[in-house]
């Protein structure tokens, strides 16, 4: 295609915590500083900043991108905040990608921040207003409803049991025990623990869900000539894709995320991937709830419809399996500061592909990885494919 190549050259993140002492600006700064330090760049080397952060109602600041801008290193620089709900964390590096691939920038800092704890008495309050103001909000909906409705439809369509799905939560919370930033590492958790946890909105139980979290993650993206100058281990952005389905979510069959498939097909095509199950070596799909990992593996065409639970049960998706899925620990284990959680997945691929993931390192020297996020009213898929070599 002759497109300009774009590499990830640095990454940084804060600890993911229930309630951070740092302000949103300070979290953004910490992650950005670490990302720049990791590749020995300074803010002066940065041409522009792409920010990702989810609803303003969390931080409690209208136009929160503007508020966060100086913390994210955007002082007197080109700065844009993109936004696709929960899909934002994987969209922000796509936004950074088009900044650099356009030829307008050589170095772009990508920062994702979320400070959910600012929203009191519970961050769920911020989600009350995601529903249609006229036809849905008067019914008093909460966010758990849409997950429960989707999960139920998924289970019913494929005849799945809760225990098939709980395995994901167990895998990811155990994986998170090796992540130094994790909020909820559970090295000894069992399927029974998940099945016996409090029922929130059947079929969703407490341990099916990722926790409310504060945190920030940053990446440094660079053009090919700059990347090759500053690192001998650039990780290339091979493909990107995103897709948004209709707002009329009650008119769609929720058993299958078609929008994730569309986003994935766009990314596979750009990356020249014809057989994703063979060519993708490591996967970080969005897992705010355990069933979502399965749902997304199917949407990404990495599992047949309804077959992802079997792959999980057979250990294919374990860190040492044939197709490691969420070796980071995912949102279920590391935590879910919405936009930052999505970018954490991309940072994980960066570290894994460079062989720098420490105790989390997957065996077999992976060459290509995929991260995906999801959001809105069960509606948006964002996909990025990273790879080394070539």
């Amino acid at each position, binding site marked *: 295609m002759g497109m300009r190549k774009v590499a990830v050259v640095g*990454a940084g*993140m*804060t*600890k*993911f*915590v*229930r309630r*951070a*002492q*740092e302000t949103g600006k300070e*979290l953004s700064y*910490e992650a950005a500083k*670490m990302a720049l330090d*990791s590749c020995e760049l300074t803010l002066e080397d940065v041409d522009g900043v792409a920010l990702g952060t989810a609803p303003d109602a969390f931080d*409690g600041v*209208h136009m929160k991108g503007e508020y966060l801008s100086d913390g994210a290193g955007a002082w007197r620089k080109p700065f844009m905040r993109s936004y696709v709900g929960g899909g934002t964390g994987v969209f922000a590096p796509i936004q950074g990608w088009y900044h650099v691939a356009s030829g307008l920038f050589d170095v772009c800092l990508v920062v994702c921040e979320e400070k959910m704890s600012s929203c*009191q*008495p*519970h961050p*769920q*309050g911020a*989600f*009350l207003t995601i529903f249609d*103001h*006229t*036809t*849905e909000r*008067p*019914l*008093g*909906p*909460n*966010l*758990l*409803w849409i997950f*429960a*409705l*989707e999960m*139920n*439809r998924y289970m019913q369509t494929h005849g799945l049991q809760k225990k098939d799905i709980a395995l994901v939560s167990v895998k990811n919370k155990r994986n998170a025990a090796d992540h*130094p*930033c994790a909020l909820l590492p559970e090295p000894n958790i069992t399927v029974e623990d998940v099945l016996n946890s409090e*029922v*929130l*909105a*059947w079929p969703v139980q407490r341990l099916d869900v990722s926790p409310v979290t*504060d*945190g920030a993650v940053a990446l440094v993206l660079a053009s090919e000539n700059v990347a090759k100058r500053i690192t001998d281990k650039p990780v290339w952005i091979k493909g990107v894709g995103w897709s948004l389905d*209709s707002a*009329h979510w*009650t*008119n*769609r*069959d*929720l058993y299958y995320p078609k929008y994730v498939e569309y986003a994935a097909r766009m990314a596979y095509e750009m990356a020249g991937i014809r057989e994703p199950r063979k060519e993708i070596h490591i996967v970080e799909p969005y897992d705010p709830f355990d069933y979502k990992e399965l749902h997304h593996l199917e949407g990404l065409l990495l599992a047949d419809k309804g077959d992802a639970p079997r792959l999980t049960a057979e250990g294919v998706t374990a860190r040492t399996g044939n197709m490691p899925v969420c070796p980071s620990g995912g949102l279920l284990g590391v935590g879910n500061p919405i936009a930052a959680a999505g970018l954490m997945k991309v940072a994980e691929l960066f*570290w894994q592909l460079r062989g*720098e*993931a*420490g105790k989390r*390192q997957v065996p077999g020297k992976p060459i290509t990885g995929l991260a995906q996020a999801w959001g809105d009213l069960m509606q948006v898929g964002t996909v990025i494919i990273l790879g080394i070599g070539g």
Partner: protein
Amino acid sequence: MSSKIKEYPGVALHESDFAEKKVLYTTWEPNARYAWDTGVAIGRYLAELKRGHIVGTTCHACRRIVVPPRVFCEWCFRPMDEWVYLQDQGVVNTFSLCHVRWDMERVKEPLIPAVIEIAGASKGMGILHLLGEVDPTEVHIGLQVQAVWKPARQRTGAITDIRYFKPSN
């Protein structure tokens, strides 16, 4: 470089830090109020609910009858052709038994939100509503339900003019 970094930034606070006043904070209650124009499609939808009807629109190009109604077809990107009265009954497409409020306080009886495919509309065309007058253990996907309306004088032209849906018969 994950394996080389010894310490990650970020300081976790705990409830006790607030109770013992170790940290300061400010509070703010946003005054954010809106009056959304309902427009043509949803305006009529609400007016018909007040009269005790569920109304949809139909697109002659893709032959779908949709609810809630809209003035344009999102698939064909053309104006909708006709208004159609639908039945005030349908089938449960999916449901949940919700034991917590939005602030995670537990409630005594679970609320039962459901997507209900409305009879008379195309297959799969559902709306979000609640189920009532039903034993939660009896609810299942595929359950036939019908609307329970508020008395005509109490209706305001809102989705809540239907109190809930209950099992048919």
